[in-house]
């Protein structure tokens, strides 16, 4: 631990030369990476992917339904669906815990009848991440749907296309850039989820320990090297994600004046 602690000082002073020229630096680096527990990256990625897939379909579905609602019903339903995004994640985590705790009716039912455990499991990770990230998907999809010319849908209907066909072949592709950026942001949010996850799933290394939780944990231990490493990983992922969002939505921005 102590040895590793000295590394970042030199890395930050001259990253390139330490890596390329200093044998000692290279050795320390290799040693650090070899001894590192990579499970948080895998768990975070897995959680992000699954939560994104679930949110994607749920979000599109919810957005489609909400658009059909009357003005007043829309305000209420939209409020409920967006709530997890506005609430502090710990509050969402608390509510999830209330629902799924193995000492409460739903939790007992799931555990005893269906053998499903949510609390302190990877399922809990996914559930927490999905609940928190879902509003991003839903809101982006809804905004994209609302921009769609209703005549496209009407045209599809008068041409005899089924509602299913219209939705997947006309609506979703036309709303593509909005949906894509929603999906990417959802993935980012799901991957980085901390508050609700820590309450519902806990931080069990190799099982529910995500990158965000690992950073918090190692900092409490004073291990700034490991924390720093994961921070760099998160920064890289975040940048790639923002880059992707801009790339996807960028095509629509081509005509915007660069004042």
């Amino acid at each position, binding site marked *: 631990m102590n040895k590793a602690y000295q590394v970042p000082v030199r890395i930050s002073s001259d990253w390139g030369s330490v890596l390329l020229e200093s044998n000692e630096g290279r050795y320390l680096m290799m040693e650090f990476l070899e001894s590192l527990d990579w499970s948080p990256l895998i768990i975070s990625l897995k959680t992000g992917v699954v939560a994104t897939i679930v949110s994607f379909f749920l979000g599109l579905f919810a957005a489609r339904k909400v658009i059909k609602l009357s003005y007043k019903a829309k305000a209420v339903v939209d409020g409920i669906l967006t709530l997890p995004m506005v609430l502090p994640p710990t509050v969402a985590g608390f509510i999830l815990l209330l629902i799924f705790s193995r000492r409460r009716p739903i939790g007992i039912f799931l555990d005893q009848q269906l053998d499903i455990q949510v609390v302190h499991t990877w399922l809990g990770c996914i559930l927490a991440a999905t609940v928190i990230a879902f509003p991003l998907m839903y809101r982006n999809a809804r905004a994209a749907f609302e921009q769609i*010319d209703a*005549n496209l849908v009407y*045209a599809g*209907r008068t041409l*005899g*296309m*089924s509602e299913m066909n219209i939705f997947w072949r*006309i609506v979703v*592709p036309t709303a593509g850039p909005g949906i894509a950026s929603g999906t990417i942001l959802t993935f980012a949010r799901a991957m980085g989820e901390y508050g609700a996850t820590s309450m519902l799933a806990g931080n069990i290394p190799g099982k529910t320990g995500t990158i965000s939780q690992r950073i918090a944990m190692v900092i409490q231990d004073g291990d700034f090297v490991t924390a720093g490493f994961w921070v760099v990983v998160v920064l890289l992922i975040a940048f790639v994600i923002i880059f992707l969002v801009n790339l996807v939505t960028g095509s629509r921005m081509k005509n915007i004046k660069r004042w």
Partner: protein
Amino acid sequence: MSICLDIKKKLGDFSLEISFDSDAKRIGILGPSGCGKSMTLKSIAGIEKPDSGQIRIDGRTLFDQAQKINLKPQKRRVGYMFQNYALFPTMTVVQNIGAGLGLSEDDRNARITDMVERFHLQGLEKHYPGELSGGQQQRVALARIMAYKPDIILLDEPFSALDEHLKERLQHEMMAMLEDYEGQVILVSHSRDEIYRFSEELIIMQEGHVLAKGKTAQLFDDPGTVSVARMTGCKNFSAAQRLDTHHLKLIDWGITLELEREIPEGINSVGYRAHAFQPVWGERQKNCLAFHLSGVDELPFERRYYLLPEEDGAAGSLIRKDPSELICWFIQDSERTQMDGKPVPDYLQFNEESVMLLRK
């Protein structure tokens, strides 16, 4: 080939109430924006649901509130051409045309190829709608509808999104393309030129109601009422008093017309088209209007005179007049040779055949 429609729909303050039967091949609906003509088309297509009534095409019931029949748009076999064409932006021309075809692969391709040829879309097959000109988009929209072989085609202001210089030719082209279509076509428009050119039968609408219906040429010649005449583009109206079978006093214009034909009882207005006046110099002749000139507008190929009847035209009162009381006299450049070198005519003569005898 027939359509039978009788529907009512209320939407906030606006209420639509329209009924007509027709077996004409080309039907026009003319009316200002917001008169309910698009709503009528949308009701036929099943996009909007009327509150009550029925819609039948070729004897097939599409909608009947009393019998609780309301076919889905998918089941109506109604082709709808939207004002903005509503081409699917993420599909190519060929994909757009084939979008609604539930045929086998081979049949579908054959149908698409046929449409591409008929609508002169060769070379554009792989293009996206955003890459097409307005006229090309219109052809794709029509091809997409025709590929689907609907029982009736509805055209909702199809030319309003086009550049002025394209309009005329595309109207012509559209009519040629619709030539070999067997079913009925309903065109909705606020442009009387478009409607006149296109339709055999005409329905004139205003504020959700039918003002008049009948053969197009007949409605333009003899509109019957002042409001219908106004919709057909007539500019000049005067209240009239029937003196006897051949004499009519035009109250607003201060003259009495002597007509060869018999004037029916109950006629209380007269309409006169701005292009129909005949200029007269020198001696006052039969049915001549004396006037004061209020103003002249020069248009590229037309000159427009705005006049006041003589008795109103006392100096100083010109400006205070309501513009709707000005008499319009339009003369095209091609006919203006008779005016060359001459001053403003002394009188304008009414042409008997052009005098429209109207009721309020």
